[in-house]
């Protein structure tokens, strides 16, 4: 058994142990979906950052940094820690209050309480389910690649084994297991990123030497306007910041806190942890560029191989195994959150919107979790056209669908259910349309247009316009009721 396989097997055993422990404490859907509202700030904050920092964040940003230069991490990662602080500001105390006053376990639950009628809740539930399967599909594909590297299997077998592992501990222990595995996975990612930063920069003589090598060859590679137009880069920042605040796996974590005192330091922990893991993409991407300039690494035709080439060729097998376990952690910590979000929308939110009462909720939550994983596996392995379409329903679609209705809706009394339904439909359909039409070459966007950021902003503007143009007395009354203290007649 190689050191890499041994490290990963130990990692899997720990995940299973947490799943088994959580299963023994599982009594209700509150335990399954919001970890029984028992989380302290440290576990919650590390779990929040690790569910946002996905495989794309580690491997994709590294590839883009190698290809585009420093502007790739400026665009996609540098201001995400700020987004965590903005999330805590905008959502922390308001969602905590809501979770104490009502039975709120998910984003559609918040929509149900905030807006009258069932249309907005149903639209958000469907969006959550489709979006969760979409995210899971991406994580299944990424798991297959990493598992095939570790165990020497095909990508298909790797994807099945990896998905089975994350499904087992999530189905057994729900978000109680998910939160604690996210916590350990997040810690592993932080330690791995710090180690990788020093190892990667030292392969080219340290941080300063690495930058000198790149600058002497092509100083433009280090500029903010290196490869992509500045409008594209800054629109990407807008999408990264607004999108982070509006991701359901982040929002759900605020519903899991055990007390109000746990809110204070969570933003700092999550921001620092995410900032540290950005060192991974920054150091590996730039050191691979310096290695290429020095002739010690080939110019990669497929930039997606940047991370794997570096760890295959430049570090010891033991460290490579440690890093692969860290990358699996990044993928799995996002995957289990989306299993829980998808399961919640399927067994709780959609039936509730349709007026159906679900009994044996833990059993149905488990069945729904398995269904989400199976959908993702089938799509990832056998239906490439569906994967292509699902890829469009990711970050930006959630941002356009959730930011206005949920984030602004918590503060703004004029926000309406109709505007919510329209914003959700716009977020999903416009991302799908942009993806299909550009792929079919029906339309071609200029290089400076970043469609995700543009659609996110259009979704917010549309939400505000519809809310003002078609006011709703019922939505206003819901806002008033939502902000009324329990047992109080006055609105405070």
């Amino acid at each position: 058994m190689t050191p890499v396989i041994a490290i990963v097997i130990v990692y899997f055993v720990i995940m299973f142990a947490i799943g088994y422990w959580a299963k023994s404490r599982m009594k209700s859907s509150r335990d399954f979906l919001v970890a029984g509202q028992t989380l302290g700030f440290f576990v919650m904050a590390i779990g929040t950052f690790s569910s946002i920092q996905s495989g794309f964040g580690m491997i994709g940003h590294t590839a883009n940094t190698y290809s585009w230069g420093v502007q790739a991490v400026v665009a996609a990662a540098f201001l995400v820690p700020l987004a965590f602080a903005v999330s805590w500001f905008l959502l922390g105390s308001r969602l905590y209050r809501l979770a104490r006053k009502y039975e709120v376990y998910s984003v559609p639950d918040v929509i149900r309480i905030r807006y009258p009628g069932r249309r907005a809740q149903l639209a958000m539930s469907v969006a959550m389910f489709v979006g969760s399967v979409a995210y899971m599909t991406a994580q299944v594909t990424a798991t297959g690649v990493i598992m095939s590297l570790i165990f020497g299997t095909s990508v298909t077998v790797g994807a099945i084994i990896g998905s089975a592992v994350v499904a087992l501990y999530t189905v057994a222990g729900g978000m109680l297991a998910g939160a604690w595995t996210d916590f350990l996975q997040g810690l592993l990612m932080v330690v791995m990123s710090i180690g990788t930063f020093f190892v990667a920069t030292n392969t080219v003589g340290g941080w300063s030497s690495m930058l000198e090598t790149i600058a002497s060859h092509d100083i433009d590679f280090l500029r903010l306007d290196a490869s992509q137009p500045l409008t594209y880069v800054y629109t990407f920042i807008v999408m990264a910041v607004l999108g982070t605040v509006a991701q359901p796996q982040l929002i759900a974590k605020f519903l899991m806190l055990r007390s109000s005192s746990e809110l204070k330091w969570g933003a700092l922990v999550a921001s620092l942890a995410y900032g540290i893991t950005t060192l991974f993409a920054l150091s590996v991407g730039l050191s691979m560029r310096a290695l290429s300039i020095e002739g010690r690494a080939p110019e990669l035709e497929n930039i997606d191989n940047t991370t794997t080439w570096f760890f295959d060729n430049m570090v010891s097998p033991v460290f490579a195994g440690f890093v692969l376990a860290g990358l699996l952690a990044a993928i799995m910590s996002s995957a289990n959150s989306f299993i829980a979000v998808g399961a919640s929308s399927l067994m709780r939110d959609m039936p509730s919107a349709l007026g159906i009462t679900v009994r044996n909720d833990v059993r149905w939550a488990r069945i729904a979790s398995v269904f989400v994983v199976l959908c993702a596996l089938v799509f990832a392995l056998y239906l490439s056209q569906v994967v292509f379409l699902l890829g469009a329903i990711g970050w930006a679609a959630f941002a356009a669908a959730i930011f206005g209705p949920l984030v602004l809706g918590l503060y703004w009394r004029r926000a309406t259910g109709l505007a919510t339904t329209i914003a959700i439909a716009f977020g999903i359909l416009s991302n799908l349309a942009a993806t299909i039409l550009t792929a079919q070459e029906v339309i071609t966007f200029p290089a400076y247009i970043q469609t995700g950021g543009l659609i996110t902003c259009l979704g917010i503007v549309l939400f505000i316009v519809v809310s003002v143009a078609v006011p709703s007395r019922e939505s206003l009354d819901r806002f008033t009721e939502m902000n009324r203290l329990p047992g109080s007649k006055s609105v405070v």
Partner: protein
Amino acid sequence: MHVDRVDRLVLLCFVTTTVAIVGMVFDHWQLVYYSIPVLTALFLLMAALNRRGEWSAPVVTGVAAFGGVMLALFVASNIALHTDELIGGLPAATAVFVYAVWPFTTVAAPLLFAWVYHRWLRHDVDDAHARSVGS
């Protein structure tokens, strides 16, 4: 219906986002770029309202100071964009982002939240917690 502080803040968010959209569509990167610190400050100001829709003067001052520093760093990076000067091995505009904007927003923004929460917002959730325990 009277216009309150949240209405005004939402209007400002609407205007800023619309300006950003114009920049995104017509390739005016400055419009997108400066919308980032402006929207950040607007969101923090909105979040600093308690459940009665009130602000605390020190809290607003703190948020404004944070927004001002962030905007100043963005201006500095913009001014440095076309210079050939290197700072810490990076072109000056990139260096402002790597060595100033990134660490400042990563550390100062969550510290600001901790302070605002402790000084102001926690009184809202303390109420909610006490009521839920008591009920």
